[in-house]
Structure formats: structure tokens, C-alpha cells
């Protein structure tokens, strides 16, 4: 069964084509990695898939619901963690969870019960009364993930969830995400850290210049080498700084 289906998704910003016709199917229960260099179109694709950015063309279906013709119904099924996690950070962690739950019309008792549990799992119970603006980046990501999970979505979209996150927080997030997929949930996450994708995901798509250049099971895409090797051979870019920037060895004082 297909959890997410993207068909002919396109987006243009002025003269720049950000997404140039993406077709993608993500099976239910998969841990799906969307990898690509900066500016490849990963974030734009995720924003269109979650109803936050209107595509110029194409369609997005989540668990048989069209995101752009029935947005409210589709949004009820998804949880989202955007890059940099911009939150209403002058609310405390507890207030933010209450707010998120009420936005989605959840009963107060359910919000309270789940908030306690989520804060405990993410190790944020002691900070429940603190404003999110005072949180570290790792705490913000965990907070954002707690908000995304509160309504028990069936599909999670995560944009660079491990960026700027310390190893301890990263481990907590991995464990929560693994248990989410184990319970039948589907995750799509974007990253440009190949190692993370290779370790976590069962399926992957490589995005380059707004197009998918490879897609499938991680083992199929990487072949005999690492995912990073496959990525460089597909994208065709290998940085070579040897012999240059020699002046870096001299100090300007």
C-alpha cells in the first residue's frame, strides 16, 4: 500500500526551477530518505507535500487523500518537522503542546496525557515550564518532534531532523522514529548526511537539480559501495580542494 504519492510535482521561483517534475511513491511503514545537495529541491518538495507551498503542477496524495483538494483531511494524517524548527518559541514547552493539540481539536485530557508522556520520552519534563526560546537546538528539534507526534499521525515529514543535534538528542530521536515505523507509521525525511540515511532508512531517493535521479531500496541504490559513493556518481560532483587555499596555513594575525 502506498502512503505518499507524488505525481509530476513542479515548482518554479521566478526563473529558477526548484522542482522539475517529481514522481515518487512511498510505501506504508517505510523509513524513506530524501537526499541531495543544498538547493536540490528537497525542502521545496516536502513543503509542497505537506500543503505548505502550492505547487505549480502535479499532485500529492497521502493515504488516498489529495493534499491540495482536501487539505484539512490530509493534514490530519500527517506530522511535520520543518528545517530549523521555527516555533512559537515564547510559549513554554507545555503551552506549545497544549496549543498544538487544541489547534487539531484534540480533547484536553488527551493532550495532557500525551504531553506528559512525550516530554518524558524526550527528556524534557524538567523543562516543561521553560520557554522554547531558551532551548538548545537539540531540545528544539525534540520539542518540534513532540508537537508533530502529539496527534498520532500516520505519516511524518521531517526536514533535516538531525542537523545541529547533539549525539544524545540524536539517539533519542532515532529511537522514537524507529518505534514510529515499527508501529506502522511512515516517515519521509530529508538529509544531506548520507551516513545517517544509510543507517536509518530502508528506502531512499536522490534528488538533484529538482529531479529524482535514483530511487528505491537503500541497498539497491548504493549497490556495492556506500550511499555516499552512489550519490557522488549520480550527482557528478566531487569536491577537490587539494593544492588550493594554501594561504589558509598562514595566519593573518
Amino acid at each position: 500500500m502506498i502512503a505518499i504519492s507524488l505525481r509530476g510535482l513542479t515548482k518554479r521561483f521566478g526563473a529558477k526551477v526548484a522542482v522539475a517534475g517529481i514522481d515518487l511513491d512511498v510505501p506504508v511503514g517505510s523509513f524513506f530518505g530524501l537526499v541531495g545537495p543544498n538547493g536540490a529541491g528537497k525542502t521545496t518538495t516536502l513543503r509542497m507535500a505537506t500543503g505548505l507551498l502550492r505547487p505549480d503542477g502535479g499532485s500529492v496524495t497521502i493515504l488516498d487523500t489529495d493534499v491540495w483538494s482536501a487539505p484539512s483531511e490530509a493534514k490530519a494524517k500527517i506530522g511535520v518537522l520543518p528545517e530549523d524548527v521555527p516555533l512559537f518559541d515564547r510559549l513554554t514547552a507545555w503551552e506549545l503542546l497544549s496549543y498544538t493539540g487544541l489547534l487539531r481539536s484534540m480533547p484536553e485530557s488527551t493532550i495532557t496525557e500525551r504531553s506528559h508522556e512525550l516530554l518524558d520520552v524526550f527528556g524534557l519534563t524538567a523543562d516543561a515550564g521553560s520557554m522554547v526560546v531558551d532551548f538548545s537546538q537539540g531540545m528544539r528539534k525534540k520539542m518540534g518532534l513532540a508537537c508533530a507526534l502529539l496527534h498520532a499521525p500516520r505519516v511524518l515529514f521531517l526536514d533535516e531532523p538531525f542537523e545541529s543535534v547533539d549525539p544524545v538528542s540524536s539517539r533519542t530521536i532515532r529511537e522514537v522514529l524507529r518505534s514510529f515505523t515499527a508501529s506502522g507509521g511512515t516517515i519521509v525525511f530529508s538529509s544531506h548526511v548520507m551516513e545517517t540515511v544509510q543507517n536509518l532508512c530502508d528506502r531512499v531517493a536522490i534528488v538533484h537539480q529538482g529531479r529524482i535521479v535514483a530511487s528505491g531500496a537503500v541497498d539497491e541504490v548504493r549497490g556495492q559501495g556506500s550511499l555516499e559513493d552512489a550519490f557522488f556518481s549520480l550527482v557528478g560532483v566531487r569536491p577537490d580542494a587539494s593544492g588550493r587555499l594554501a594561504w589558509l596555513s598562514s595566519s593573518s594575525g
Partner: protein
Amino acid sequence: MALVLVRLKLALLRAALRQAKIEGIVGTVFALLVALAVGGTGAAFFATVRFVDDPVATDVTIAAFTVVFFVWLLGPIITAASDGTLPPEQLAPFPLTGRQLMPGLTLATVVGFGGLCTALVLLGAFAGLAPFGALAVVTVLALVAQLLTCAVFSRLLATLVSGAVRRRRGRDLALVIGPLLGLVVNIALQVLLRETFDPNDPQNADFETWRAVRPFLVTLPSGTPAIAAGLAREGNAAGAVSALVVAWAVVALGLKLWHIALERSLTTAGGGSAERRRKPRALFPWFVRFLPRSRVGAVAARELRLTWRDPRQRAAFFGSIFAPVLLIFSIRTLSSVDPGIVLLGIAPGMFIAIGSANLWGYDGRAAWTDAVASGDRGDDVIGKVVARAILAAVMSAAGIAGLAVRVGSAARVGEAVALAASAFGLVTGVAVVLAVRSPYPMPDSRTNVFSSGTTGQGFGQAGIALGLLFGSTLVIAPVGAALAYVDSSTGRAFVSIGALVAGFAVLGAGVRSASEYLRSHGPEVLENLVPDG
């Protein structure tokens, strides 16, 4: 380095203008026109000083420089529309000393429409004050000192207040001191004008009060440049040069203080770090426990929490009630015993409603939280309006009650309440449509909570607010006059009911229109709040 920063600011302004949408371009044009009109009028006024006697010319200069100084000082705080094109925090990582950084930041502050307007006024001052001969150089240096004094002390105050409002103890103090300062200036000006000029016989002026106030004005930072220019005109070279030295020393002192304030602001933890590890509190503050536990209630509760906790919103909120408080506490109002004066109590609520014209601006990138949640986006509009209505109700009630106590009569309280509700409905109904159709993100600057982005954007915001103020005043003032002066209580009741019906009709239409737009254009609204796409 100063020129590098000026060039950087000009480049940033050009880039902002190139990327600007229609509101930004209108704002920039509006700013230019305002600068030219105000500056031109000021210049013409100052040029006429050429035809008055020397001592009078010096006194006029002191008074005019004081006015210009206070406009620079309090303008950004009252309008919450300060130019934030070149935020100092972005320069913090560079190894720049205070001597390199501060002159550049000062000149960059002057580059803009405020600087253009002041420069025009000072050109007029040169025409009116400059003597023939070498002392004209002193006049020029005094005028430049005045321009720099305005820029430096304006930014110093903004930086001090910005730092203060980020900390609990400081914010309470700063938010009391700001309005109090404005109040004192306003009342002082009114007393001065009333004592000097007889309203029934303007030709018969008595300058005794002016002579009492003059020594105080001279001690203000704007005082010595005025004295220097005045003495230069009188031909008193030694006195003019001495005053000029003091004027430039004051500029240097202001720069030093600004530098210290900036460094403190940039290196002090923001937010509520002192509030960490507090017991979790409910989303709904105690005074709004009655709100429904729904999307509407949640949005309203969040808005109320953030109005107090977000330094930018707190500054904007206090800025919005600043002008009406001045109006209510004016000598003319307080000395009147006319029951109709109670109707002025609607002003705080009206100004809060005017602030609704950019309801989504402070959400900025966090607005995705609402956009990604299932449910009716129209509830977000209602929730925001409910929060504004609660704030407006509290502030208007305080204004009306205070004035009723002052005049010792509750005769017009009912009419004032009806007019307040009507005015809120009328203004909010229009403002909320503007808010969804042309939202713009408010920058979050550590050093300037009054920042509204680039020069054009700031003036665009002020322009919308002024337009709403003038437009709504044109509609509401005749109704208020009718409620104040119609003797028949039945007649007043009819007018009150009519105003209420009209106000709520506009509010309903505005909320419906805004809700419909947000439902169908949610991603576009969000995109406007995330300008980098």
C-alpha cells in the same frame, strides 16, 4: 570603515527595493514624500528665521532642535517602525573596534528617509542662521552635530529599551518610563504653549515660562548645537566655538554610551533565561479561562501570551497605546469637566485595532504551525480578533472609567462603551483584511525591538496605520460629536445602536473576507511571511 557601512546600507536598501512587493514600493514612495514634505516645510520655517532678531533666532533654534531631537528619540518607540536595514548584530562577528563600528553605524542610521527629512530641515536652518564669513563653518558643524546627535541618541535609547524589555525587571521599568517620558514631554509642551500664547489673542505672547524652561532645554543633547549655531549668527566666535566643542563632545559621549549598550545587548542572554525551570503553566492565562478549549480559544490565548512575552509585540502594544494615553492625559482633556470628554476613552481600543493591520507579521516563520494543522483556518482569524478585542476592551474600559471619574459624571459612559465597540469593529474589520492580504514579517532584532525591517517597509507599516487612523477618524469623529452634544438621550441611544450595528457589520464582513482568503490562500500568506521561500 564608515563609508563601507554606508555603502553596505545603500546596497541593502537597493536590494530590498528590487525584491519589494507593491506594499514595499508604496511604503518607500510614501516615505520619500513624507520626508520631502516635512523636511521642506521645516526648511521653509527655518529659512524665515533670517528675518528675526538674533536672540529670538537662537531661542527659535533651541526650540526647533528640541522638537527634532524628541521626534528622533520617541518616534521609533511610538510607531514601532524603526529602520532595521543594517542590524548591528550581523556585524558583531567581525573584528571591528568601537572607533571603526560606531561612526559607520551612525552614518548608516542617517542614511534613510529620517535623515533626508532632517537634512532638509537643517539646510533651511543654514539659510536662516548662517552668518556671512568664516563663522558659517561653525554653523555647518553645529548643524551636522545636531543631525548626528539625533541619530546617536535615538539609537542609544532604542538599544537600551530593547535590552531592557528582554528582561523581566527591566521590561517593567522600561515600559513605565517610556510612556511617562512621553507624557512629561507632552504636558510640558502644552503648558509652555498655553502659558506663552493667549488663545484669544495670539499676538499677545508672554515669554516668561519660555525663559524658565530655556535653561533646561539647553542642557539637552540638542541644546549645544542650537546655541553654537545661534551664537555664530550673533557673531560671538568664542562662545560659538565653545558650544560647538561641547556639542561634538556630547556626540562622542552618546557614541560611547551607544557602543556600551550595543555590546551589552549583544552579549546578554535574551528571552526568559531567568524563568527557566518554572512550574508548567496552562496555555490560558487566568483572566481568559472563559475562552473555549478549541482552535479559536487556543489562538486567542497564544496571542495574549505572546503580546506580553515577545519583546517586539510588547513594544508595539505599548507603542499603540502611547498616543491615546497622551491624548487622555493632555491638559485640555484633564482640565475639562464636559461629560463628552469620556468619549475620548475609546482611543486605546482604536489604536489596538489599528495594530491589527499586520496580525500575522509577528508569527513570521512560526506561522507554519497553524498552516500545517488540520482544521478551519478561519478560526485563526477569529482567535486573533478575539485576543485583540480582549486587549481593546480592557484598555478602553480603563480609559473610559478614568475619564468618567475625572469629570465626575457617568453621563456618557454607555455611549462611550458603544462607540468603543463600534470603533473597534470598524477598524478591525478593515485591518484584518489588510493583514491577510499583505502580511509582512517583522524582524527579530536583539538590538532594536522597534525594527520593522528596511526603511521603506517601516514607513509602509506606518503609512497603513496612519491611513487607518485618518480614515476611521473621519467616520467615527462625527458619531462621537453627535454622542457628545446631542441633548436627547433617546437620540443618543439611536446613534449608539446605529454605530454598534455598523461597527459589527464591518467587523463581520472583514472577518468573513479574511477567513475566506486564508482558507484559499494559506500557502501564499505563509510564503509572504517566509521571504526567502
